[in-house]
């Protein structure tokens, strides 16, 4: 099997253009009629659904940002009632509130097609065992690849994340062919194999699909070595669907976007004007194949470029390059989205002064987030026990709000750097 859906993945540009146009028109009516937020925006701009006649008219449409999801928390942007909803997922927001997304049965089916395309592009077959070590739950990683595996007709092993020695045992005993997880966790599993004196060549594992965080070409080589597999990148975000929005083929020079469902644009993040292919800018998606949460021109904040150059794999779907960074301050820590504002929110909620700094390092291929907080008269005590209790309380609150653990370090007052009166909040030492 070379493609999961050759009729789409190798379709002509003309066919895709017609398909995208028809879907955009349908989507715009859905938004106008069923999402008051969009109707209001259209009315303010003097725009009517009938003004959109093809995909080329997409630039007439307004943008949507993460704040819009927050303002309409939790279900305000949904275009369907709960009778049509099939599933909810969520990702962390900036101030404690999560970004909530919904799917109809059709939405899950289309997302699963994307994930199945990714599996096939990574050499997946119907008789494969797919070992899924992404977390299962509100995070889209686990269930996204799980449904993609079932869509393909392969066998899903829903291991979820954690307990690495057990992961290794399952890789050995259950004969997993493909593994799906974050790249840093793949490295960690590889290192665990080494510690356990297991030669990766003795495992049947032949490919891995890794996403949810940025990783470099060097890390790809490392993972390929420690696990003795071929490593593929996958892209997705819950607002659009989840993993499978875009995926790598054997050429590994970018990720093919499922543009029949998720229409991409690259815009200049300052002017919001579209930029030509090959130019880096902010990636924007319009969910032309979504019913429950049909976001129009959603700004992902990921900085990347598109290429429509012919791909040796035969797929005609546009490719996006590896994201180079973000146009906002979001950090990705072990696959979890973390905003500095969330850290500040935790500190303020504990009644402490917001004098803090976040330092991110990658130690043995695992992200470590350290939050340094300046000691104050209120926090200080002559007793080590009391200070340790304070540290534990801060650590617990961080874990609860951020969904990822942080190392908390209390430092002397006025010891954190301030430049031009504005604090330097984040130091990211990861070389990705």
């Amino acid at each position: 099997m070379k493609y999961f859906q050759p009729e789409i993945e190798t379709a002509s540009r003309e066919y895709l253009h017609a398909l995208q146009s028809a879907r955009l028109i349908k989507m715009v009516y859905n938004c106008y009629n069923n999402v008051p937020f969009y109707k209001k925006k259209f009315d303010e701009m003097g725009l009517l659904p009938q003004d959109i006649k093809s995909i080329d008219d997409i630039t007439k449409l307004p943008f949507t940002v993460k704040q819009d999801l927050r303002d309409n928390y939790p279900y305000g942007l949904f275009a369907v009632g709960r009778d049509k909803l099939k599933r909810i997922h969520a990702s962390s927001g900036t101030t404690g509130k999560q970004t909530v997304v919904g799917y109809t049965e059709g939405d899950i089916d289309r997302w699963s097609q994307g994930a199945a395309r990714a599996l096939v592009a990574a050499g997946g077959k119907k008789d494969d065992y797919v070992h899924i070590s992404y977390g299962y739950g509100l995070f889209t990683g686990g269930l996204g690849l799980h449904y993609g595996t079932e869509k393909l007709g392969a066998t899903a092993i829903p291991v979820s994340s954690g307990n690495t020695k057990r992961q290794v045992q399952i890789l050995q005993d259950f004969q997993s062919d493909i593994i799906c997880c974050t790249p840093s966790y793949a490295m960690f599993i590889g290192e665990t194999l080494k510690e356990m004196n297991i030669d990766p060549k003795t495992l049947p594992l032949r490919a891995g699909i890794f996403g949810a965080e940025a990783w470099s070409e060097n890390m790809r080589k490392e993972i390929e070595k420690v696990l003795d597999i071929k490593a593929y990148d996958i892209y997705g975000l819950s607002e659009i669907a989840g993993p499978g929005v875009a995926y790598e083929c054997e050429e590994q020079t970018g990720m093919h976007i499922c543009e029949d469902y998720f229409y991409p644009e690259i815009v200049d993040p300052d002017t919001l004007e579209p930029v030509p292919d090959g130019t880096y800018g902010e990636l924007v998606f319009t969910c032309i194949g979504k019913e429950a949460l049909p976001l129009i021109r959603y700004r992902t904040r990921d900085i990347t470029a598109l290429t429509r150059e012919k791909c040796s794999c035969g797929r005609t779907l546009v490719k996006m390059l590896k994201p180079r960074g973000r146009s906002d301050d979001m950090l990705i820590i072990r696959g979890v989205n973390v905003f500095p504002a969330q850290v500040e929110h935790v500190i303020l909620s504990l009644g402490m002064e917001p004098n803090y700094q976040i330092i991110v390092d990658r130690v043995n291929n695992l992200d470590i987030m350290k939050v340094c907080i300046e000691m104050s008269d209120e926090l200080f005590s002559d007793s080590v026990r009391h200070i340790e209790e304070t540290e534990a309380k801060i650590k617990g609150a961080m874990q609860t709000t951020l969904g990822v653990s942080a190392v908390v370090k209390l430092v002397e007052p006025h010891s954190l750097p301030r430049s031009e009166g504005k604090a330097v909040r984040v130091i990211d030492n990861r070389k990705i």
Partner: protein
Amino acid sequence: MTIKQISVFVENKEGRLAEITNVLAENQIDIRALSIADTTDYGILRLIVNDPEKAVKVLKEAKLTVSPTDVLAVGVDDTPGGFAKAIGVLSEAKIGVEYAYAFVTPTVGKAYVILRVNDNDLAAKALEAAGFEPLNQSELFS
């Protein structure tokens, strides 16, 4: 009958302790006793000084985190079993000791113990009843 102890938050950085004690030296503050509680990342410097109010003021001016605490200072015999006797009194009265440190003075035969307990009044009464005399600030520096 308590005395003021001053605690200072010290990050584990080279030269930090020297800088802090220099602040006290420059301001003519006399240190009678000290102890350092250390952890991996930081330490707590605990001081008994002749002028705690001035010490707090100058340390705060040097942008340090300072906290004054009431502690007990008790004279014990500088002989084997001297400290054990005082601690035994507190133990019998079921008074918890958070930490303690000792120092000697030129007066031969006497040692002094700084005690941080969970109840100063109760501890002082128990010690007095057993013949110990907690010192006040001026006695400590006379």
